[in-house]
């Protein structure tokens, strides 16, 4: 019976090819958008997960002011060597390092200047490692890392190895760049982080940073909590002790202590809200599609009133008529969903490639099975539910009236 209904429904859809196609198109657009958007959301989520894995969740930061609201180098509150020493001594802190950061002018040959962040690092290997973990656990992929005594030497982010991304030509080991008009030699390149800002950074030793920018103070303090300690508890402890050390009242601190997890959560929730808003917009188009399907089904039932009467007169039960029309709209929904998923995957792939070309490797689509299945089921449900009311109406037609309908 189900096979018969399906066969009959399909032949009806085929007989009205153009209308079926147009109706399908309306749902296809919504599903394409939803599939592509969610696949990006998923890709971003798994990038963040991977990033978190590399970074570990045992890190705590101290930032000036209210947190991440300030761009590096724009705050006049900084930390100094004594602050860092104080932090190191707090119970539960395993190791700590400080980082200098500022937006600097970088020139290479005659190409147009760029303005990336310049980072000042400790050359102690464990401290440098801590900073590297902050950037997703990147390591040196070419050349060498900074070491003690390097002053006018720098390591560079991944983007400098790609032509046309920062400068027209890629840099290589030994290239000379000018940071704020001071000539610096590139000694190594870092692996890719996946975010364009991080991949454009140049890293100097703290001595080099002082030499070029004449800044001795730190922008951020990073620490790793001792194994087995709860990072958020340590963060609270640091906040309290550091406030007392600085002689500030509670709630009036000029610094913020955050665990890595807090930051990740903020970052993730912003992205998810953004993604969610886009998905909701796409959902609106699905609602429009549902109305369109309903309209198509009403028209179709009107046209086939006589046919319904004939079918009833030769023994069709109401359920058969109902199922025929629900199947037709369900099939329209399902096909729209199927093509939508395929197109959505295509668009997402293209979008991902475009993002890669701009250095945004963090924005890559992910196509989990549940998303594919979910979109198909959703489209099928939208189709069949939109067809349900017209189908109920059709099934209840009085056979005598329906037969007389011209």
């Amino acid at each position, binding site marked *: 019976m189900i096979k018969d209904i399906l066969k009959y429904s399909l*032949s009806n859809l085929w007989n009205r090819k153009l209308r079926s196609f147009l109706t399908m198109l309306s749902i296809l657009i919504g599903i394409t958008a939803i599939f592509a958007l969610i696949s990006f959301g998923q890709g971003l989520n798994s990038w963040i997960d991977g990033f978190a894995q590399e970074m570990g969740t045992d890190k705590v930061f101290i930032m000036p002011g209210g947190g991440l609201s300030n761009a590096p180098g724009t705050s006049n509150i900084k930390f100094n060597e004594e602050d860092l020493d104080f932090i190191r001594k707090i119970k539960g802190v395993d190791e700590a390092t400080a980082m200098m950061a500022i937006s600097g002018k970088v020139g290479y040959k005659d190409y147009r200047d760029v303005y990336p962040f310049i980072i000042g690092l400790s050359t102690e290997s464990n401290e440098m490692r801590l900073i590297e973990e902050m950037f997703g656990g990147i390591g040196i992929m070419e050349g060498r890392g900074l070491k003690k005594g390097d002053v006018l030497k720098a390591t560079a982010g991944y983007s400098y190895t790609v032509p046309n991304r920062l400068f027209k030509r890629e840099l290589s080991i030994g290239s000379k760049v000018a940071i704020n008009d001071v000539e610096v030699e590139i000694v190594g390149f870092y692996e890719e982080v996946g975010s364009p800002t991080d991949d454009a950074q140049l890293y100097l030793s703290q001595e080099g940073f002082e030499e070029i920018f004449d800044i001795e103070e730190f922008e951020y303090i990073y620490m790793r909590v001792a194994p087995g300690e709860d990072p958020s508890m340590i963060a609270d402890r640091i906040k309290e002790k550091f406030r007392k050390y600085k002689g500030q009242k509670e709630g009036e601190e000029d610094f913020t202590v955050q665990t890595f997890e807090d930051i990740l959560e903020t970052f993730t929730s912003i992205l998810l809200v953004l993604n969610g808003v886009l998905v909701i917009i796409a959902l609106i188009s699905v609602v429009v599609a549902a109305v369109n399907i309903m309209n198509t089904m009403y028209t179709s039932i009107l046209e086939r009133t006589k046919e319904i009467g004939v*079918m009833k*007169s030769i*023994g069709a039960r109401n359920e058969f008529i109902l199922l025929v029309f629900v199947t037709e709209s369900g099939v329209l929904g399902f096909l729209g969903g199927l093509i939508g998923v395929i197109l959505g995957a295509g668009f997402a792939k293209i979008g991902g490639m475009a993002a890669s070309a701009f250095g945004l490797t963090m924005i890559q689509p992910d196509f989990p099975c549940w998303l594919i299945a979910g979109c198909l089921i959703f489209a099928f449900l939208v189709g069949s539910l939109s067809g349900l009311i017209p189908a109920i109406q059709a099934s209840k037609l009085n*056979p005598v009236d329906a037969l007389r309908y011209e």
Partner: protein
Amino acid sequence: MVKRDKHIIRIVEAWKTYKMGDVDVHALRGMNFEVEYGEFVAIMGPSGSGKSTAVNMVGCLDVPTKGDIYLEGKNISTLSESQLAQIRGKKIGFIFQQFNLISTLTAKRNVTLPMVFQGVGYRKRVRRAEKLLKMVGLGERMQHKPTELSGGQQQRVAIARALANDPDVILADEPTGNLDSKTGKEMMDFLCNLHKKEKKTIVMVTHDPRLAKFAERIAHLRDGSIVKR
């Protein structure tokens, strides 16, 4: 045990009332009508006599506002829409003036459709549809859609469809109305044949006295009830 009724269809004191605005229109006014097993009856009557309504009752397409209809001794006037559908699909074969084939389906699938509704298995119903179409002389045109067939051929498909579930009653509503006289004559031969050879009960509605002559009995309908001659 109910004594077996000698009537396959019995309509008792049937009234059918339609509301048209504030006015009640009585299409049937206490109609009494019986059809015996194996009978060939013609129903005649001028338009407006309640002919269509009466046919709908006989065909179990409609139930009376008041009164009862018995099909094989069973009162069907209280059944639900779907129960009626099931019964008419099994017991009654319709032949319409307009042929009323499903235009999107081939001749063969049109004939299999009533069997689909009765839950007949795929192979069995395809075999039967082929047999019936050969019987009505359309063995070569089974895969044609109605629009690719002549009026006479379409009506023969309709006959094959009416016979699909081997019903007891064939209900023909002006079966030759849309056919030329030669094809109309062929159609009547078919009906007579079904009556004589297959022992089918045939109820035919017509306004043409020449066609009515083929029947064993003619029932005249006037003002919503059968009049005795």
